[in-house]
């Protein structure tokens, strides 16, 4: 199980509860994913932590789950039922056998750094930290890039105060290799960097916030304790603009719809009104509220008095042109329902930025031998009939790694992937397409041209016999090696050279009029 967000947690629990062992790998120090950053979830407005943390604890303490956090998969080889996965456990600098998770080290650490991941750059954490108090596992990690000891060689405050002596500065990265039968990828998403749209002023105008920043701002455990305030930390906004489709449904950035932004923006609008009483302006292209209870939530927001303006925002600026605009952010947009340009002065702007594939999707796809779409989402076997399997047998995908989706959909997909995994285990045998390549070892000259042709690593070279061999369990039958073999040693079942040439002859027979077939 790669990825410990809500989709990964769900899938891991389903498999583990069915009685099969699960190894879970999470890149961050704690599982939980993006959902752990949220305060409320739409449309029911139930608290994200209240529904997520029990699940996290369940995974963390499940006898069938072996959890690696602050770790990454570095190598994958093998095939369905027989994968070898190498996991790199990054050095925590904390001995997890001794650590009790008391948190004294975090209290005593004198070094404060901005947390760009969990707090989205709004809040601080220490150099030794767990991302949030409910983190699973509870063991902190030392951020070696910022720790005074690793930078200057002195301090060691955490070591001094640790009651169990768990701090270990000498720890090194460790590598573990496991045999696994199947792999589920739930690697999640990255937020679109709104700096790429300069006219929206994100990063330049202080009070333009990204959606994840606002999630932290509204979170009761966040840097402001849930108070919605401007960047100065005290002023409560009197008017707020929420811009939908920032970086999505825009051919300059991402053509796709990010699926969650409309509902997320409605949630933001509700939270802002509830907590500050500010006037809220939602600038949308189209309202998309297609799931259960979503349209009802939209109707509720309409009744609450949120302003909805249909039109894409052209610019957000602090250059006042009319009286009343001084010191405010002015949102310039066209109201397409009225057909008029409008300028709305507000105190705060929230950009509902697009969900994008993880920045390293190419490496992930390459590592696991699966393909991704033009944008970078991992491709499922069939868009409708097989949304969790991939073209590589034994590898499944769930959650936003497959495409932008909301929490209920991620959970559903996680469960589906788990069902496929458990189903395959219980089948005990695997049926496969009969189309395979095979190498005639007498003809093979051992040139190894085919070795690099195969994207599934199905061809291996046998050193002592100096010939190549196709592993039929890995071969998907594309035939590229058959076409490449200079010795004609590789043949494909069903699509052999003879079969294709016979077809060719058959098709061209029409054209061979010159031959007189009548007996003399």
């Amino acid at each position, binding site marked *: 199980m790669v990825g410990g967000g809500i989709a990964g947690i769900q899938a891991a629990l389903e498999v583990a509860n069915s009685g099969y062992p699960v190894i879970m790998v999470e890149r961050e120090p704690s599982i939980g994913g993006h959902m752990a950053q949220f305060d409320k979830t739409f449309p029911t407005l139930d608290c994200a932590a209240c529904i997520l943390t029990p699940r996290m604890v369940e995974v963390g303490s499940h006898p069938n789950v072996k959890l690696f956090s602050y770790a990454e998969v570095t190598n994958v080889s093998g095939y369905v039922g027989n994968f070898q996965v190498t996991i790199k456990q990054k050095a925590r600098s904390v001995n997890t056998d001794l650590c009790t998770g008391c948190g004294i080290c975090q209290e005593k650490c004198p070094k404060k750094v901005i947390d760009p991941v969990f707090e989205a750059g709004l809040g601080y954490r220490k150099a030794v930290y767990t991302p949030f108090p409910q983190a699973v596992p509870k063991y902190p990690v030392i951020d070696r890039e910022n720790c005074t000891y690793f930078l200057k060689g002195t301090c060691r405050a955490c070591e001094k105060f640790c009651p169990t002596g768990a701090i270990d500065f000498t720890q090194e990265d460790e590598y573990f290799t496991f045999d696994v039968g199947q792999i589920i990828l739930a690697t999640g998403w990255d937020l679109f960097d709104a700096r790429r749209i300069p006219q929206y002023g994100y990063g330049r105008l202080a009070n333009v916030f990204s959606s994840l920043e606002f999630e932290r701002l509204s979170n009761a455990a966040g840097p402001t304790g849930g108070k919605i305030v401007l960047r100065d930390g005290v002023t409560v906004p009197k008017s707020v603009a929420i811009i939908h489709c920032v970086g999505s449904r825009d051919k300059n950035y991402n053509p796709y719809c990010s699926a969650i932004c409309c509902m997320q923006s409605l949630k933001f609008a509700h939270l802002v009104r509830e907590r500050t009483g500010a006037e809220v302006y939602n600038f949308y292209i189209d309202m998309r509220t297609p799931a259960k209870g979503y349209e009802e939530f939209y109707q509720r927001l309409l009744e609450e008095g949120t302003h909805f303006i249909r039109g894409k925002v052209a610019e957000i600026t602090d250059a006042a042109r009319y009286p009343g605009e001084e010191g405010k952010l002015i949102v310039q947009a066209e109201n397409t329902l009225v057909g008029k340009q409008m300028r709305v002065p507000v105190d705060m702007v929230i950009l509902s930025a697009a969900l994008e594939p993880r920045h390293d999707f190419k490496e992930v796809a390459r590592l696991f*031998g*699966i393909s991704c779409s033009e944008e970078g989402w991992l491709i499922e076997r069939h868009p409708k009939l097989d949304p969790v399997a991939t073209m590589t047998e034994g590898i499944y995908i769930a959650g936003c790694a497959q495409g932008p989706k909301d929490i209920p959909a991620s959970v559903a997909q996680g469960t589906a992937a788990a069902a496929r995994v458990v189903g395959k285990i219980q089948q005990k045998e695997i049926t496969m397409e009969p189309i395979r390549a095979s190498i005639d070892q007498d003809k093979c000259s051992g040139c190894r041209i085919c070795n690099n*042709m195969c994207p599934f690593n199905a061809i291996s070279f046998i050193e002592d016999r100096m010939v190549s061999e196709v592993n039929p369990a890995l071969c998907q*039958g*594309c035939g*590229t090696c058959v076409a490449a073999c200079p010795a004609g040693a590789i043949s494909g079942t069903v699509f052999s050279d003879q079969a*294709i*040439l016979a077809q*060719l002859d058959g098709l061209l027979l029409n054209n*061979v009029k010159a031959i007189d077939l009548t007996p003399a």
Partner: protein
Amino acid sequence: MSEQFEPVIIGFTCNWCSYRAADMAGMGRIKYAPNVRLIRLMCSGRLDPTFVIKAFAGGADGVLVSGCHPGDCHYIEQNYKAMRRFYLLKKLLTQMGIEPGRLKLLWASAAEGQIFADEVTKFTEEVRALGPLHWNPTAALEAEQKIHEPAEVVA
């Protein structure tokens, strides 16, 4: 009035995208030139350049090679390999005196029935404009037999 030249075109399609595109065109009752005869392969990467040369030798006036769009390959990246081979092959054919316009590479996804049909019709017209390849099938057969017979060893 002379009869219009009807070129014979062999089309190699991959199982997942372009063959499905042709299927789609058929199901959608989209009309396209009947001159193309399709051979299904699992992947455009399966296309041995020999097949194309054999097709020309056997009397085809044009050859269409078709696969999934780059990045969409069912087998991850094999259409890129087909693409590399394609350009090399085109160079080779030009050297052998076959006009480059007789060989065409077409990317068509399973949804692009209309594009497939339009491109096939366009290609047929292009080959028609080039005229017959003037390959003597009997000569080709004789040549093939010669290859298979062991050459006499001259003392």
